[in-house]
Each structure stands twice: as C-alpha cells, then as structure tokens.
C-alpha cells in the first residue's frame, strides 16, 4: 500500500501540495484527478522518490520511499513528459530498465511491443506521441513493480489503444496484483478504468473514494409525482444530494442503494419514476458540492 500522511511540498515558497493524506491500496486502479496545478504530478513525483516531501511521510509497503531503492523497486514512474535515452530504441530502454529493475520481464515486453506493432530497432525519438506513451506503459508494466505511476499517460492514446492498455492492466492486476495510479486532469479519461479516485484541488485532497462504492451509494432518480404531498412523502425518506426540476419532471441525486431508493419511491406510487446511472462526473459534482465546492470550476 502506498500511504501519504500530511505531505507538504513547496516550490520557491509556493505551496504545491498541502497536507495531503491518501492511501492507495494494492490491486486497484487508482485515479488521481485535479486541475492543472492541483499537485497531482508533484504528489506522484514524491511517491516515485524523485522529490523529497518538505513535511509528512510517504511510504510504499510501510517503507519510506525517498532514497530507498528497496521501496522504489516496487514503483515505476511514467512522467507526463517521459525521457527516452539519447538515440535509444525500445530495446535500449528495456536494457536500461533491465539493469535496475531485477524483475523486468523482457520477454513479455518484446511480446507486447510486437502485439502493439511497435518497432524494436527504430529510435524512439522518431515515434509519434501516442507510440511513445505506449512504450512507456509497456516498460512500466514489464518492470515487474507493484505500483505503476502514470502522469497524464492516457492523454493522446486512441480509444483502441486505451482498451488495449486496459486489458493489459487487467491481466497484470489479476496475475500479479499490479496497482496502476493514473493521474489526469480529465475525469472522462479515468471513468472507465479506475476503481478508486482521489480528487486533488489546490494542493489538497478534496475526496478519495472507491468508485464502485460511490456508484452504488448514489443514484439519479427521474420522477413525476401526482401532487406535492406525495412528493414530500417520498423525499422525506430519501437523502437527496441534488435536485433539479423541469416542469413536473424532477431529477434527484439521491444517496442510498438502488434497491432501497426504488422500493421507497415505488411504495408512494408516483406518476412516473426511473433510476439512471450517474457518470463519474455527475458523482463528483454531487460529492464536491456537498463538500461546499462548485465542481464545475474545479474540473472539466
């Protein structure tokens, strides 16, 4: 487990990360979202052991990560602007990483390169942006680490490649418990891939929740009530987070399980009602508004 406790980082007096505490459990895909400058990259660089926290503690499997090769062996960091060795090919990169990551799986790396149609002996500097990202992801996956930190890595990947990467991740998670940590400013990028999401804003964590838990605990309800009395009766037993009205059609965001909500609404026999799934964005809108923030100003 990766654990950050009250982590603070300043650059030239400017607060980049402000008392962040977050836990990233093993075997999940952790999404880290936030606007530009929210502190995602800084937090990832601290987790990767590149930066030293000014205050607080970051541990990987209970071991401090900074200047600790034993802990860093379990972490692979893919920067948003990754470096590739001068004139290096995909194979050269594998050679280099192979020298420092003992569990680097060269065979699988070559297989995956082949599967994704990436050339072995061509200089990486001649690759497209998307191809470079694919190489980075494959290097990270094959390094044999428990944690894979990806900073804006999914930017520029086409949908097909995203699916391919998703399936690679799924396999690695299943086979050896890989924990990808994906940082992005774009919620929609993470929606279909993450299990757990942490929202960073102005250097702090606004919330950090399991996506499934969020999805099962909050629902969108569209309904039309016969009269106000009926409506009041139904709503009295529900935890309404958000409410919109368009004529008689009411759209409610309600906490609770789908079954509980459906049973309670159905019992009141409204004119019409249906349960709709929430997008990740809608869930965040609700959660952050509850926390007192205007989500639309926080994130795309």
């Amino acid at each position, binding site marked *: 487990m990766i654990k950050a406790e009250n982590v603070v980082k300043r*650059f*030239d007096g400017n607060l980049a990360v402000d008392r962040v505490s977050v836990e990233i459990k093993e075997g999940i895909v952790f999404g880290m979202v936030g606007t530009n400058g929210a502190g995602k990259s800084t937090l990832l*660089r601290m987790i*990767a*052991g*590149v*930066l*030293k926290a000014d205050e607080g503690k970051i541990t990987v499997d209970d071991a401090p990560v900074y*200047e600790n*090769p*034993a*802990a*860093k*062996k379990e*972490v*692979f*960091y893919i*920067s948003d*602007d*990754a*470096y590739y*060795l*001068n004139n290096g090919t995909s194979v*050269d990169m594998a*050679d*280099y990483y*192979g*020298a*420092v*990551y*003992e569990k680097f799986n060269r065979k699988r790396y070559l297989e995956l390169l082949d599967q994704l149609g990436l050339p072995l002996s061509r200089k990486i500097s001649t690759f497209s942006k998307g191809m470079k990202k694919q190489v980075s992801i494959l290097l990270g996956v094959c390094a044999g680490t428990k944690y894979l930190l990806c900073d804006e890595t999914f930017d520029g990947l086409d949908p097909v490649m995203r699916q391919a990467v998703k399936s690679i991740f799924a396999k690695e998670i299943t086979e050896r418990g890989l924990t990808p940590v994906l940082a992005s400013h774009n919620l929609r990028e993470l929606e279909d891939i993450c299990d757990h999401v942490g929202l960073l804003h102005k250097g702090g964590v606004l919330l950090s929740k399991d996506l499934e838990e969020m999805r099962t605990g909050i629902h969108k309800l569209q309904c039309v009530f016969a009269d106000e009395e009926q409506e009041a009766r139904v709503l009295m037993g529900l935890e309404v987070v958000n409410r919109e009205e368009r004529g008689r059609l009411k759209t409610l965001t309600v906490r609770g399980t789908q079954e509980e909500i459906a049973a309670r609404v159905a019992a009141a026999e409204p004119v019409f009602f249906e349960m709709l799934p929430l997008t990740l964005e809608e869930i965040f809108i609700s959660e952050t508004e509850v926390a007192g923030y205007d989500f639309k100003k926080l994130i795309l």
Partner: protein
Amino acid sequence: MTSRSSFFKLLKEDLRQRLWTIILAAIVFVLPVPIYIAMEISSSRGFGTGMLDHFAIRLAEPMSYNSAWMIMVTICGAFICAVSGFGYLFSKKKVDFFHSLPVKRETLFAVRYINGVLIYLVPYVVMALVSILIITVTGNMRAVVFFVVLKGLAVHLLGYLAIYTTFILCVTFVGNFVVFCAVSGWVFGITPIVLLIYNWFEEQFFNTYTYMGDALNERLHSLRFLCPEYFYIYSWNGREVGVAFVLLQELAFVAVLTVITLLVYKARPSDGAGKAIAFPILKPVIRISVELLAGALIGMLFHEAADRSYGVPGWMIFGAILGVVICHMLIQSIFYFDVRKCFADKTSLGVVAVVAVAFVLVMRYDTFGYDKYLPKEKKLESVAIDITGLDTYRNNYKYDGSYMNYTDEVYEMELTDIDAVYPYLESLVADNEYYWKLRERGAATTVTRVEVTYRLENGKTVYREYRVPEIRENLFAPVFESMEYKEVHYSDVYSVPENILESITAVHAMNTQLMNLSTGERTEFMAIVRRELAAQSLKEKLNTLPVAVLNLQFVSYRVQYDSDGMPYDNSRVYKVELPVYPSFTETLAFLAERGFYPDEEYEWTGKELMRIEFPEVVQKEDAGYMGDVWSTESVEVTEYVLTGDNNKLVEAQIEYPKDWDYGYNVIPVDEEDYKRLYELCTWEELYYYGGVSDYDRHENYRVSLDVPREGYNVYETYYFTIPEDADISFLLD
C-alpha cells in the same frame, strides 16, 4: 541496495549513453601524440649515445607533467565529461527519469563519476602505451621516458580529477547550462580575480607595496585549494618539495573535493532542474561576491581614468556604485530569468553598494594602516633588508653546488637577531611616512629605497618597500655589520668556492694587476678578504672611499642540450667586483707583497692626453617642461673657454636655454699641469664602488686621461673627479 552486477550494468549502460565522449577522447588522445612521436623519430638525425636520453625525453614531452597539450586536453575533457555525465540535472524530464529509478543517489553519482574518469583515463593509458611502444621499437627507449610518462600521468590524472570534480560541483549548483558556464567561471575565477583586483588596489594606493616577483603566485599557491586550475597547473612547478608530498596532498584534496561534491549532489533538490541556481542559499553568495568585485573593479577603472591626478575620489565612488548596480541588474535578470526582476532585492543592492564604496575608500585612504604595518617584535622570525643604492654595482650570485645563480637579498636573507634589526625597521616605517608627506608638499628630498621581507612565526611572509630620505647610519649599522646580512649581501664572495675562481685582478685606475696566485694562495687570500669584509663597519662603508677594486672571475662549467638534443657548452663567466677599503689592511698587504700598490705614482710617458670636461649641469626634474611647451627661459653659466688664437683658457659667461644638457669644453694642458691636476684627482670609479653618501666632489668638473695602451695604437680613457673646492686657476695661465 544496488547489487554489484546492477552497478556494472549501470556503468555499461551509462557508457553506452556517452559514446560520443568516448569517441572524442579516443581521437584526441590516441591519435595526436603517437603521430607526433612517429613524425619526430622519422625526421630525426642520427644521434650519439649521449644525446639519446635527451631525444627520448623530447619524444615523451607531450606526455610530460607540464605539457601544454595535455593541460588543454585535460581541462576540456573535464568540462565535457562533467557535462555529459551530470548535465542531466539541467533537465526536469531527465531528472524524473534517473531519480525515479530504484538506485541511490550516491550509486548514480558513482556510476557517472567513474565513467567520466574512465573516459579520460583509458584513452590516456592507451596513448601512453602506444607511444612507449613506438619509442621502443624505434630503438629510442630510455628509462627516463617511463618516469616522464608516469609523472605526467599522475599529475594530469589528479589535475583532471580536481577540475572534473569542480565542474561537477558547478553542475550540481545550477539547473541550466548557460548559468553553469557562468557559475563555473565564478568558481574557477573568483580566487585569482580577487587577488588580482586586491593587488591592483595595493599597487595603486599603498606606498609601501612592492611587487616581489611572484607575490601573486605565492598568494595563489597558498589559496590553491580554492583555485583548482592553479592547483593543477602550478602545484608541481618550482616547489622544492618531494613528488610524494605533492601527490599525497593532491590526492587528499581530490578526495575531500569529491566527498563535498557527492554531499552537495545528494542534497540537491530534484526540482532544481531548469532553475538558475538549485540551492537558493547560493544566490546571494554568488551575487554579492560578484557585485563587490565589479564595484571594486569599475571603481578602480574610474579612478584610473579620472581621479588619478587629483585627490577627490568622487569618480571612484561613482564607478563602484555603477559596477554594483550593473552587476546586480545582470545577475538578477539571470537568476529570475526575467529582466523585469533586475532590481529585485533592493535592500541588498543598497547594502552591497555601500560596502563596495566603503571598500574602495578604505583602500584609497589606507584606513587599516597597510603602510604603517610593522609586525610585533615577538612575532617576527626573520627579516631581510635590501637597500637599493648600497653597492649598486653588484649582482648577487649564489653558488648552488654546481652552478651560480642570481639571487635576491629579499628572498635569501634571514636576519634573526630581531632586537638588533627592529629599531631600524621602526625608523623605516616612520621615515617612509615622513618622505611621502614631503612629497605631497612638493618638497625636494633625497630618497633611498629599502625593500624589507618580514617572515612571521606563523609562516606568513610580508613584503614592503620603504622610501626614506636617509639611511640612518646608527640604526642600520647593527644590521650591516652582522654576518647574517653580509653573507647574503656579498653572497658570491661567501658562497662561491675557490675551485671555480678563475682569476683575481686588483685595479686602481691605470694600475691594474692580474694576480698570479697558486691554489693555496687563492684560498688564503679569499679567507682574508672574507674576514676583513665581515669586519668592515658601516661607517667606513658610507663615509670612506675605497682604495682599489678586486675583480674576481668565476667560471661555472655546464653542458646543456638544445631542443634537438644537441649538446652545447653553457659555461658562464661571472665577474664579481669588490671594493677594497682602507680598513682591509691585510688584503692590501697581501696585494702589496705581490707588487700591487693602489696609490703607486703614475709614470708619465708624455703620450697621455688629459682633459677637463665641464660644465656638467644636471637637468632639474621639475622645471622647464610644461605640457607640450618647452620653457624659453635661459640661464647664464660660468665656463672656462679657449680663446681661438693661443689656446688660452679664459672665464666667460655663457647663456644656455634653461634645462638643456650643456656641452663640454676640452682643454689640453702641458705635462706640468698634468701632474698638478692629477694630484687633485680621484679615480671616478671609486665613487661608483663606494657607499651612498655624498662626497665633496665637484659636480661640474670631470678629468679624463687618455693613456696609450702598450703594444696597441689605441688609448684607454680613465675618468677622475676633483674636489669641489679644488683650485684649478693654475690652468688659466
């Protein structure tokens, strides 16, 4: 932990990334020197056995410790390897890449550091081996080549490590290549520049400052650990210390420097990449030091340009402020990468400007009493005193066991009887101050220059030059009369052995005698001379004319070799002149026993030609010339002139333009007059060999005597002076 195999894998992978530096090193090392050696051998002539050592040394010269080629390659190589190995610290994405690897910083440092050394060392060794092979197979190998090559390797490798590590230290300080170049200039240049500027101030503002040959070099040597390029290039030159000592010293320096660099590298924040300076604390250190230097430098330039002739230092103050401000603007713009920040930290700017102005003023007015400096008596270990004007005819030589070398009293002399010397030193400090006050007032005075070396118990050496109106006979006498003074002041007489003493000639005007002495007699004679010289008082030295002069001729034999290895005779003849004073009674007696009498009456042959030359008016320094216009004033001078008809001498008033060099008149006189005039004469050379005091010689009259040289159809001319009050009216008849 990084396993050993991982470490070597990293070494290998890092070398793969630095292929271009390896190729460059291979080209620079392996090609030029072996090619040079092969060309030299192919174009060489046949040599005798005795020359082969020298030819072999010449072949190995490009690999010697002071080879300019190797020094250049080493410094450039250190720069390239430091940047290729640690330049990644300038790039954020490279830093993210390397610092996210499961490798400790010290391992990363070691990998890159070692590779940087290998890139230099391996081609160097290959070059040396190939060169030795060429020298060997062509039959020019000598054992001395190994020594030259090994010493060269040790010096250049240690120098490389010092320069290379310093460049790495500079890389770790900064986050940008351009700033790296500037900071490297600061690190390598700050010590010599500070010393140069300080030296310039000393020279300009301190009256007792004296440039003692290598004073700057000496200071740099004492600060060599702050100046790696000096440490590398000059540590081995001219130091009378063992190779092993220097080697150990350099090894220790490199080890300490490497540890410091590693610690700085480890402490360097990864987010330093892309910034001007990675460590915020360094910014004011660099900025303030450069601003102060710039203030001092520009202040001095303005002083030179504007204030020099006048006492008001207004322009100097303006220059100091200007230097600080310009420098501040420039540095802040670089540090912030924003020209709008050029006036950031205004308080600091103000403080530095005030300090710079204070510095130039303190130096200008010698606030801390540089000129009044006199070490405490107890702290003095020894003193050297060299009075310019005392025995000006002499060049000091010292015999080093095989050869005679020039020597300098201020370096060689060690007067340890401080009690005897100290009163004189006190008088020098006071008299110097008095002299400069007189000069400021424009008062004319005589001047004697006295150079002093203070050697302190703490190992420090301080040089001063005093200008004093007079010698102060009573205070200087205990110094002059000590053996420690005389053994150095007359070092040739005391240090040179008789076995290289070729000849002794006693001279007094026309009376010259080469002394035919046996080896035993020479030894005896020199012992007498040394004894009487040691016993001579300052009073006699300053107030009595010598009676004769001894010319001692030493020959120092030496065979040397030219750049082609050809031997040539570099033997040198040294002539040492020593005046003989009336107190040298035993010396004079020794000479008399062998037929030399200084005051022997001259036997006139009637072929001599005697003349009086006059007047000889000395041009005054401070008159007659104002800007580009010569004075048109004239002066009347009383002269004796010849009438045209009967060659009679008559007195006349002649008008000359003021400050001209006057001509002279010549008067032939008859033999009677010759003898009368000669009786008034003193051989002029005796004044030259005498002390510094004035004598009552007539400044305007000079007598010359042309004597026919026996066996030759030529005359030799001797010059004489006559007393100021001499009556020469008999010549008017």
